[in-house]
């Protein structure tokens, strides 16, 4: 006998085998035993969650010959059940609406046929799979038949895209929404199949497979089949990683450690190693997102949701890795990775996109972006405003192999790596704990941009003020002119600034004190560095090089 794919061989043969869809099996079983069978069902839900299987089960339940009425538990061995299973029952018509989309197909197969009584069983069941692809005309031609079909007809429409089914069809059907399978259900299903196939397996491998399947039972079996084709031995985590090109946890650990160390070279090397192992760039991105998500969940939400089945050791590793980041950083990193995953769909330069994503999520890059966002908004208002010297301090650290970087050449030293300082500190306080002047100076642009968002008039006042001192909870802000200071010092304006500042710091009770900068030394320092303005002498030199020209009069030179 020819080989049959696992997902066909192990289609659910009874409602009890249908995992993860209890809300649907219950409806169907109850309505069958109560004899209240709807004349049309619309099954929708993501791929591989059991729509077609359920439709066939329903057909069997309605027609099983072992009972004299529809039964919630079809026998599976009567001629009717067997014919339906093999796909040659006369009264169960399965139509592929995606290749037979036209009105003629519908007329010929359904409308003309529905009025005749079933040939050999109780019900005529029409399963219209991929129904979203029927043409508009074809849908319309079905309307009357679906609304009031003869008593012996049951329609089952199945689709992954219910929104493409016209509302007039939807309102005539009983709609049942299938869910993605939970990881536990997928694992249970894999276990059932492997037991039946007689292949030894490791539980960890099944966990990996079910996660990779993203809630689709069919995907999980397709993946399992890939692994089985890859190896003759037991199903081990290693075999899974190699066969489906999944990214191993060790690799993810290496990448995350590299990013945490904020060392460009380590990040580049880690990315290189991951790609050299044959992993697919998109899978790396997905796996990394999952990993960061796990870190967030374990370390900051303090739960193990979605991580059932992971070992305590693994959770501990995640917790330790999370210590290097704040929750804000992790969220920003997730955002950048999601963006990269979108970009990768439109390019074949996967490697570059991945590498770019990796260096974009380095902590230094993240904080620079956070600092730049308000700065950019501000520079739209005042083009000439000098951008502060803050950015320089955020440039990624480039290190020769230094003691701060763990030896990255060994792929899996993570387990016994550094015993990090007290994990309790991070558990209780994920946010900045100590506010010093540097912190204030870093977040001030954010405060400023939020002030500007609230009040347009503030643009005249704010822009070149600076945080100069911090005494306890009193923040000193220096303005270049007395005018700006006095305007900013009005009670209402002050209150707004103070509340925004506290919000940004996530700490209450901070107040601001406004002063006029004495001869504002800091303000003048910045623009007058070695780089002259746009009309400066470097440009002039360049003009002289590029064009046959001579200096006649230089008014800028003072």
């Amino acid at each position, binding site marked *: 006998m020819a080989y049959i794919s696992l997902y066909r061989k192990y289609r659910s043969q009874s409602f009890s085998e249908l995992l993860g869809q209890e809300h649907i099996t219950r409806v169907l079983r109850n309505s069958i035993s109560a004899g209240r069978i709807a004349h049309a069902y619309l099954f929708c839900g993501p791929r591989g969650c059991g729509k077609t299987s359920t439709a066939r089960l329903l057909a069997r339940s309605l027609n099983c010959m072992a009972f004299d009425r529809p039964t919630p538990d079809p026998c599976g061995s009567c001629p009717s059940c067997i014919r339906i299973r093999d796909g040659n029952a006369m009264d169960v018509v399965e139509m592929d609406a995606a290749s037979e989309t036209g009105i003629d197909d519908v007329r010929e197969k359904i409308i003309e046929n529905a009025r005749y009584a079933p040939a050999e069983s109780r019900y005529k069941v029409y399963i219209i799979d991929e129904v979203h*692809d029927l043409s508009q005309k074809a849908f319309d031609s079905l309307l009357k038949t679906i609304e009031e079909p003869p008593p012996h007809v049951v329609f089952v429409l199945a689709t992954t895209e219910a929104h493409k089914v016209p509302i007039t069809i939807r309102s005539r059907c009983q709609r049942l929404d299938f869910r993605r399978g939970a990881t536990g259900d997928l694992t249970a299903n894999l276990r059932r199949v492997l037991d039946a196939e007689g292949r030894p397996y490791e539980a960890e491998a099944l966990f990996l497979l079910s996660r990779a399947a993203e809630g689709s039972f069919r995907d999980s079996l397709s993946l399992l089949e890939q692994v089985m*084709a*890859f190896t003759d031995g037991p199903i081990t985590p290693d075999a899974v990683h190699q066969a489906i090109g999944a990214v191993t946890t060790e690799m993810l650990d290496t990448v995350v450690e590299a990013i945490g160390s904020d060392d460009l070279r380590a990040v580049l*090397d880690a990315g290189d190693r991951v790609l050299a192992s044959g992993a697919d760039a998109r899978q790396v991105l997905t796996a990394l997102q999952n990993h960061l998500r796990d870190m967030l969940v374990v370390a900051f939400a303090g739960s193990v949701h979605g991580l059932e089945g992971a070992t305590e050791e693994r959770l501990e590793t995640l917790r330790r890795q999370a210590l290097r980041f704040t929750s804000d950083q992790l969220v920003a990193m997730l955002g950048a990775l999601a963006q990269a995953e979108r970009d990768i769909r*439109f390019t074949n*330069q996967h*490697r570059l996109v991945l590498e770019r994503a990796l260096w974009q999520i380095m902590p230094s890059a993240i904080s620079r972006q956070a600092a730049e966002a308000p700065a950019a908004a501000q520079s739209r208002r005042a083009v000439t405003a000098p951008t502060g010297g803050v950015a320089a301090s955020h440039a990624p650290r480039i290190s020769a192999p230094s003691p701060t970087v763990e030896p990255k050449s060994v792929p899996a030293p993570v387990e016994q790596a550094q015993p990090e300082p007290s994990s309790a500190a991070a558990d209780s306080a994920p946010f900045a704990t100590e506010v010093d002047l540097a912190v204030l100076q870093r977040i001030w642009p954010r405060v400023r941009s939020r002030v500007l968002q609230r009040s347009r008039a503030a643009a005249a006042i704010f822009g070149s003020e600076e945080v100069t001192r911090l005494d306890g909870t009193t923040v000193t802000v220096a303005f270049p002119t007395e005018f700006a200071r006095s305007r900013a010092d009005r009670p209402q304006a002050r209150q707004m600034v103070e509340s925004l500042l506290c919000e940004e710091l996530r700490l209450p009770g901070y107040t601001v004190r406004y002063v006029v900068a004495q001869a504002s030394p800091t303000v003048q320092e910045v623009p007058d560095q070695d*780089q002259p303005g746009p009309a400066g002498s470097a440009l002039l030199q*360049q003009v002289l090089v590029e064009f046959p020209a001579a200096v006649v009069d230089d008014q800028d030179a003072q």
Partner: protein
Amino acid sequence: MVEPASRSRRPAKSREIGEIPPPRPVDFVPLDRIVGLDAARSVLTGALRRNALAGTYLLKGPTGVGKTTLARAFAQAATCTSPADDGGIACGSCMSCTLVARGTHPEVLLISPSGDQTQIWQFWDRPGKPPGALERTLPFSPSVGARRVYIIERADTLNAAASNSLLKVLEEPPAYALFLLLTPNAERLLPTVVSRSQVVTLSPLPVDELEQWLVEAEGLEPHRARLIATLSEGRVGTARQLTSDAGVYEHVEAAMNLTLQLLQATPLRALKLSEQMRQIGAQLDKTTQSGDEASSPADSESGGRPRVERRGLGMVLDLMAFTLRDVLALGAGSERAYALSPECLSAARSHPETALPDRCMHAIDVLLRARRRLDQNVPPNLLTDWITTSIVVGQNRAHT
């Protein structure tokens, strides 16, 4: 600086413009003579040997890695009527094998995009169109070979109607049917299609191995072999395409030098460099023009220069991005394999400030975005101007 907007909101073109096209596998290569692809090959032949061949396989791997070559070779093994090695290897002499090798097997059908898309009529009969490939073949068991094989090239170009029309067929094909879907980018396929297939990943050769192969089998000088192996990222087809003409190397070097100049340039030089970019693109295009690309229907339809010019420019953008990546790695002190030519390498070393990570990152970002715009029909000269000015201006800003 404002990014030039694309003229159309259409999704990216089926084939990324400027991607180095693989040489058309006119010569049939039998399964045991294919270079690399060991893992994919063993998965496929293993399934054949165990008589556990699924109905649908999705072969994914970057352009030029050898998807079509492998698919055709495997089709021969799968259809052979007197296979050796428990069914894993084609005999090469039966009727079926000969026909596959000649490319005229009536039951091994190759379906390629018609224009930018693969249409539903290519599979099922539609009025006013040529007969569909599946309509009158799929229901009948094969008579020449052991199986019917359908190779669907560039499966990512299947349009919505076509992919939907294949869903049921791919899910439960007749026992004698074998579908091989090929794609460089599985994400562009309908997830419902992917979930019905066994995904086989075709990984490129490690760069070292390809380099060695280029030296030994193709007789290349070592440093050129190194460069080409790195540029093609281990893809054999791409490497062969790059070695097909000696002139390519020269232009590759020119593009690298240009990149380094760009990193040190002042705003005034930006437009001059932009012009150079276009020139190198045009030359690269001329030297790598393969018969395939010139005659493929997609090109003759959109016709004429503009599209061709884009292809060369796309290659220049890729080369520049590669160069920058190497410069970045160099600056970071990484010990990665460098594709940079010796002259470029010393030039980059002598100007350490070019390797400032911020500059390189920014420039790569610009190039990647430009790459996207190129596929969206932004005029080339506007694009190169934008690239050079934003790289130069961006780095000046980073400098101040």
